[in-house]
């Protein structure tokens, strides 16, 4: 009976998460004539015309690549800096660590709309106008407070004794960090990495403001360029959002399967 309850709960969760998106997928397959009528719910004559329109008519491939570079770069940078800082704050316990964490969180409290102009001026001054590098640095910087906090929490969950034991066994601090601490914090790394990646992948305001041309434009801005002055191509927007969302979800599934399950299977917990 409990199993049935758990299954129902799971089904409800999956349904609730996927339903609106499933609606997007259905919309992306409807021919133009059916886009604005309801019923029918399902497309009468499913068509790939919208996908063709966005992939052939726009440099969507370039946009996806740009988004991938910006998001991956930001994630790697945030995870690297974040885990180093988190390790220090959790294990080395320097004085003033509470203040450091508080300061980091405070830095993320301004509305992004207020800092667009200052950052625009800053990236221009640094010669990074209209580059992906600007987006990577900005996204990583925005994601750092969360990354540092999360990594601090996850490192705190790793027992000190393991680190000490590794050092006693002759490992350098770096070695102990890489070979003992990091592997045990992987669930945290994956969760943090996914959140940062998705944030960077979907970020719109700064992508719009800091880039100007197709060479560095990202997917959300690309989708915003679909509509004409009044006309809103619902089919193409739906297709664009499916194409924009799919890689992220696949990424998550891959990470969940490979990394998390592989690790928690063999983890030894005290």
């Amino acid at each position, binding site marked *: 009976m409990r199993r049935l309850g758990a299954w129902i709960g799971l089904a409800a969760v999956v349904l609730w998460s996927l339903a609106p998106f499933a609606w997007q997928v259905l919309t992306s397959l409807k021919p133009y004539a059916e886009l604005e009528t309801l019923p029918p719910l399902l497309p009468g004559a499913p068509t790939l015309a919208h996908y063709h329109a966005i992939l052939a008519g726009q440099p969507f491939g370039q946009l996806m690549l740009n988004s991938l570079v910006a998001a991956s770069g930001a994630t790697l940078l945030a995870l690297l800096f974040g885990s180093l800082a988190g390790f220090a704050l959790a294990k080395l316990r320097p004085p003033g660590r509470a203040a450091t964490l508080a300061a980091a969180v405070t830095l993320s409290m301004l509305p992004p709309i207020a800092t667009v102009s200052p950052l625009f001026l800053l990236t221009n001054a640094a010669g990074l106008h209209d580059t992906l590098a600007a987006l990577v640095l900005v996204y990583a910087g925005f994601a750092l407070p969360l990354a540092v*906090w999360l990594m601090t*929490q996850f490192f705190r969950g790793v027992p000190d004794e393991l680190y000490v034991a590794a050092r006693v066994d002759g490992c350098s601090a770096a070695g102990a960090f890489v070979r003992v601490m990091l592997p045990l914090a992987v669930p945290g790394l994956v969760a943090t990495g996914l959140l940062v990646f998705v944030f960077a992948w979907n970020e719109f305001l700064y992508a719009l403001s800091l880039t100007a041309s197709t060479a560095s434009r990202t997917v959300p801005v690309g989708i915003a360029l679909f509509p004409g002055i009044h006309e809103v191509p619902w089919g193409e927007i739906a297709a664009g959002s499916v194409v924009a969302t799919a890689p992220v979800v696949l990424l998550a599934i891959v990470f969940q399967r490979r990394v998390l399950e592989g690790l928690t299977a063999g983890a030894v917990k005290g």
Partner: protein
Amino acid sequence: MRSGRAESLLLVGPAACLLAVVTAVPMVHVVWLSLQERTPFRPPAFAGLENYLRLAADERFWNALWNTVYFAVVSVALELVLGLAVALAVARAGRMRSLVYGAILVPWAVPTVVSARMWEWMYNPEIGVLNHLLGARINWLGDPVLALHAAIAMDVWKSTPFVALLLLAGLQGIPRDLYRAAAIDGAGAWIAFRRITLPLLAPVILVATVFRTIDALRVFDAVYVLTGGGPANGTETLSIYAYKVLFQTLDFGYGSTLAVAVLAVTAAATLVYARLLGGGTE
């Protein structure tokens, strides 16, 4: 396990540098702007606290503040509850776990602007899916009170995966032995949840709550696309108001003051949470 300050500094250094450049410098700039009179129509002038006095008397600010706080409190509360439910469900998913993981991530992965348009279409009174399925003619986005709740529902859908993801990672860090020991001692599922799960999840819950609150108090895109701040400014949040003042009125001074107000409210909320949920910062 203590260590030299130098080592800690070196490790925290890169993060601190990047944060300083990308967030601290602009923040200082914004605070400085909040004390100025800055529009493209007049030469810049120092205004001191004048902008803040204007803020205190600004009815539109108080309206936006109320909308924002209400939005944040309700949506974060719902996200916590639902996020926990989702995390618990996924943790027990067994073989299907990877696919379920991917499924629950979808709302978070859809670009915000797209998701807002999607929900706008779903909320359409005549040809929207919601009214179609409910067989009703509810004016979801056209009534000031309903619209705010409609925006909350959309945000909850979008952001629950964030909380669920964090809680799931936290759950995976709880040793199974504790539950086995509890079972051996005869404790039921609810007791195990209250005495083992919740306390050990508390630090992660704190992080999730704080960051979700920060994001909810700064909400802009989602609500703006859905309602534009209306009807009758009934869904105008602080960020929407700041955006309009900054980039429509082109009053960069007062707009920055509004931004600092958001910062103050968020900082206050975070302090409250840190006190209540405690223990996250030592």
